[in-house]
């Protein structure tokens, strides 16, 4: 672990954190919520919560993981409150350069996969997004989702394995004997 003497008293200005991390936090929220307006609402709400708590944050904290954690919890609350009306595929998911039949087939496949992902336990889905698309370490994912790094790793593995099993691409990898297949690892 790297220790920087005197760094604990030098917390960056909150504006600096906003400029450094708002983009990736927004991307995470968009990925979790699949909706631009909800992503922006949670971005604003999450950063307000962070702003209010910033004075009390330890100067040696991992600011990035801390922001993800607050924003992620905001999104989770929103997901819980959202009526399960199904996902609307936005335009950006279809590739108009392909022939129309191919597009339709792809869209069908996409919808099925999206439904499968939505059906995953929250921590499994969040872990996949945080690892594969936000490129965070398992340690950080553990901090964000209140689990150990090992559980974060297992959650990513199980989520991908479940999707592969369901969609039969290249066959399923053996399921590790960590927990029941359908439960997230806390």
């Amino acid at each position, binding site marked *: 672990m790297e220790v920087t003497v005197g760094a604990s008293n030098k917390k960056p200005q*909150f*504006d600096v954190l*906003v*400029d450094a991390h*708002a*983009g990736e936090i*927004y*991307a995470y929220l*968009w*990925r979790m919520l699949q909706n631009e307006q909800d*992503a*922006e609402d949670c*971005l*604003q709400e999450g*950063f*307000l919560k962070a*702003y*209010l*708590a910033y004075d009390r944050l330890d100067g040696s904290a991992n600011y990035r993981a801390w922001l993800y954690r607050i924003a992620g919890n905001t999104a989770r609350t929103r997901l819980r409150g959202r009526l399960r009306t199904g996902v609307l595929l936005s335009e*950006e*998911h279809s*590739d108009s350069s392909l022939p129309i039949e191919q597009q339709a087939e*792809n869209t069908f*496949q*996409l919808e099925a*996969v*999206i439904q499968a*992902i939505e059906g995953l336990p929250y921590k499994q889905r969040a872990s*996949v*997004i945080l690892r*594969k*698309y936000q490129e965070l370490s398992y340690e950080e994912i553990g901090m964000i989702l209140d689990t150990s790094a090992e559980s974060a790793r297992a959650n990513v593995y199980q989520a*991908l394995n479940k*999707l*592969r099993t369901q*969609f039969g*691409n*290249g066959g399923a990898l053996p399921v590790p004997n960590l927990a029941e297949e359908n439960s997230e690892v806390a």
Partner: protein
Amino acid sequence: MDKIEETLDAIYGTPAMGTEVLDRLRHSVRQWQEAIWYDALRDTAVGPLLVAVSDQGVVAIEFGTDEAGFVGELEARHGVTAIRSMERVSETMSQILQYLSGDRRSFEIDIDLRDSTEFQRKVLEAAVAVPPGYVATYGEIATRIGKPQSSRAVGQALARNPIPIIVPCHRVVAADGSLTGYSGAGGIETKAHLLRLEGATIA
């Protein structure tokens, strides 16, 4: 990369945040940095209690008034956004509640007299210097700030005290010791109540 990962890439791709989203967030952050935070308690020893703080300290305390009026006046007077936050106000609020229940005698809190004139500020700071259990007269405060002829203006400055209780204008009394004027809710009754709470002997 297998087919599932390709499909995931199509779903999660690269959602770019529009510059207008970042601009709106930056705008909010600027508002928060200048904001006044408030909280309201419906039922206290002095009635409904409203407390507002800035990053510098307590800005306003009112009791017996309604929330909408309090917020409207704060925003109009200071030209900033007032945002409700139990978290930001909790330290000040809990010290006031401890004081009202007799568990605290003095406050350990900064005050922010942002909209007061130089004269009002001197008067209010002189009032803060009067310890609990004691009283001072308007004339004594006037003398203390080097303006012995201004006891009437001292009275007016105290009547406009934006932070009653913490700036103890209730400890300032008339030359004969009588309790004249208290602009907070409950008027002179409240003034007497606060002085009794502090153990002052009331003439």
